[in-house]
């Protein structure tokens, strides 16, 4: 099924549409079959909406985010952004896209160049888009303010900041060009609990203020439930379930999502004991279900 849409024609209200996407990595060795990281991915994100992508390590959720950003090879299928096919965008097209499509990575320690001051890090995307140094300077102040960092941060190096503060710098960098979509790749997984709360608040606030959309990748169902309008669950490179956040994260249909939900522990011994029992019952039931067609 090829549903390539060109230049806004019939693209409806979707900001980002991914359809029939396969991503394969070639493996070393003569005539070896490539490694298939993603299979037949279909998702879409509306303006101002957050799509949460949840899955475990190796499920392909990060690869999907990277494919949208042009950092992973698209083998089949299309990625449409604002009606334009960007599956195989060139460097020049990517530069134009950089204005509307941005990223926040997981690790705030390696996503900022350790030898550059915060000011130059934030000014970099502005310079690429041809803003004058004076304009950039003003914008950098605004950005620091938007993420709650003092303006003297401009002259400081990333190592002078805590993990949470660095992640806010990374968010400010993503916001610099007022993008329409930000791909957030596990942006709170490396943070402490209380810092995570601060950063999640910031994501929500920014969305309310600017109407930006998020493609929010996380392994944590609680985080995804908190921040997403809709949720897609990934397992072994495929999307196994997708729908409104409250449905998928509270009463999931797919057996994997059910396991995922009951596996995350709750902070109360008695409720956790109940959840534990529910989980054991679910696992037993699923095991029976799995076994039955074989015995039949």
């Amino acid at each position: 099924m090829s549903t390539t849409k060109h230049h806004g024609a019939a693209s409806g209200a979707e900001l980002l549409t991914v359809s029939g996407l396969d991503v394969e990595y070639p493996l070393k060795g003569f005539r070896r079959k490539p490694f298939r990281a993603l299979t037949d991915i279909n998702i879409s994100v509306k303006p101002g909406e957050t799509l949460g992508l949840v899955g475990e390590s190796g499920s392909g959720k990060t690869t999907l985010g990277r494919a949208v950003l042009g950092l992973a090879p698209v083998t089949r299928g299309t990625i449409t952004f604002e009606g334009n096919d960007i599956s195989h965008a060139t460097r020049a097209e990517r530069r134009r896209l950089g204005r509307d499509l941005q990223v926040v990575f997981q690790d705030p320690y390696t996503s900022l160049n350790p030898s550059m001051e915060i000011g130059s890090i934030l000014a970099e995307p502005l310079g690429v888009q041809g803003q004058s140094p004076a304009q950039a300077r003003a914008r950098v102040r605004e950005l620091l303010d938007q993420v709650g960092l003092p303006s003297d941060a401009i002259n400081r190096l990333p190592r002078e900041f805590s993990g949470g503060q660095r992640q806010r710098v990374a968010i400010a960098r993503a916001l610099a060009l007022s993008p329409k979509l930000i791909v957030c790749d596990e942006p709170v997984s490396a943070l402490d609990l209380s810092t995570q709360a601060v950063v999640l608040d910031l994501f929500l606030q920014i969305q309310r203020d600017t109407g930006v959309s998020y493609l929010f990748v996380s392994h944590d169902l609680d985080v995804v439930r908190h921040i997403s309008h809709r949720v897609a669950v990934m397992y072994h490179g495929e999307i196994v379930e997708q729908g409104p956040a409250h449905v998928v994260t509270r009463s999931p249909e797919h057996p994997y999502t059910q396991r995922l939900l009951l596996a995350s522990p709750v902070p109360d011994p008695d409720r956790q004991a109940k959840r534990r029992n529910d989980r054991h019952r679910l696992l037993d039931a699923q095991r029976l279900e799995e076994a039955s067609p074989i015995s039949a």
Partner: protein
Amino acid sequence: MSVPVELVGQSGTVVRSNVIKKILKNPLGLSAVVVLLFMVVLAVLANVLTSFDPNFANIGKTLASGDAVNLLGTDSVGRDVWSRLVFGARTTLLSALLCAAVAIAIGLPSGLVAGYYGGKFDGVSNWLVNVLMSLPGIIVLLTVRAALGPSVWLSMVAFGILMAPGYFRLTRTAVQSVRNELYVDAARVAGLSDTAIMSRHIFSVVRAPIIIQTAVICGVAIAIQSGLEFLGLGDPSVATWGVMLNEGFKNIYLSPLLLVWPALAIGLTIGALVLLANAIRDALEDAEKIKAPKRGGNTAQASLATVRRRPDRTFSAVVEAGTEHHLVKVSHLGVGYPQADGSIKKVVDDVSFHVDRGEVLGIVGESGSGKSQTAFSILGLLPDAARIVGGSIQFDGKYTVAPTDDRVSQTRLSEYRGKRISYIPQEPMSNLDPAFTIGYQLVTPMMRVLKISKSEATKRALKLLDDVGIRFPEKTFEAYPHEVSGGMAQRVLIAGAISCEPDLIIADEPTTALDVTVQADVLDLVRDLQKRLGVGVILVTHNFGVVADLCDRVAVMQNGRLVEDGDVRDILRNPKDPYTQKLLSSMLEDKEPMTMLVSAGMPAAQAAARNDERDEKEMAR
């Protein structure tokens, strides 16, 4: 606040000025810089400093010793030694720079491109580099001289080409290590061109090693060049130190001093270059060396030294009466690290708790709370630099850290560790040696600790693997660590931890690196084993869900202090301490989605800034 700020290109200068300061503080670095500056001044001001042309020969005055006209005397054809030495400095230094410039011009860009793009260019250039490196340098230089004549400059260009592979390899490796860093990805997403990414983000990584390498290469170039000329293969019409060396050697019996001056110049310059390279390397290494605190050295240290001393074997204090029944009792424990300025930075401060047999204690806290340091001091696995600055630890009625010790007694602890106290680490994969099979890694400690035969240990290991829920114990026993998944590896480590029937298991974030469904399985396993074996467990974690799942009691830590401890239900349901309340309120479970968590009634940016201030105050306390 509104100081005008230069935004672009500042970082480099800021960093570099610090490095220069550090080099000048280093006595060897300073003397190297002084010697090199002296040589450079000689070379630059050669015309002013001398009154003779280096090749002007006064046949009437050969092999003269120094006087007012010829400061250092004359050589066998009556040329002024001082002039030749000074002009020789110019030629020698310039030729060394030429060699380095050629090597950098070839090695650096090709290394950048090969490292960044990889692919065919990388393959071809690697092949070329291997060919170049297998060529014997001196023979190539002799060939060049034979073919193109005795020119200093030509031979240095050739030598530069021979040295280029060093730069190529250096650059390529450095670039490969950062090519996939997230900040490079972020620059790609921002739309930076490849050249911009290389010059802004990647070149900064190679800069420092290149500078160090260049200092060394210049030294080598001078040595090689002088060597060739000493053998008589140089250009006799150009004054260089090597040519002077050759000339001096011919007249060594008539005027030995002729040999001394060029030899001294060569030795000093090469030595200075090597020392400078060392000084730059030291300056670029971030970690400052901290001298071992000397007893009674300064006041802060002295007061500590009088109270606490190294534990010795014979010393064994009796624990406080009435506390012997606790499996582990930590009282007023303080752990600190000596700093460069002589003070001690405390990471654990006045922490007390106890664990009884068959009980699970959770130590909860965020990063930097000192929870792992506390666990490691019970295990005696603190880094060498760490000092116990207060308190004591007792295990089963005996001190492992007596109230006056300043380190954990390894001799006393080795009786327990691995036998009665065992450890489940955070990263299962990095705690298994990839070179040995899982079976070997389980069997060996059992043979040592339990003093049983290999076959008995093997039987036991298979049973343990079965106990921890591994479906095919024999297969896993034979497997190497890379052949099993992370969850399986953690089960293997748990099997190892219970293999010697311990009384206490210390688990440091045992499920943090695992997927959530695997985490649930591992928690089930730990709970089962704990119930079955009746061991005491100290569980270090940041996750309140894990605490609720396993623990009987909880201790909450913040910035090295224990802020609250008690029964798990009391703490999780009615936390008294504001920090515990803040942590629990940050949990997402049971929160209305899309609502603010910590910034009710104010913009999130303001809440974030306020949170930073609070953190800073906490740290300063």
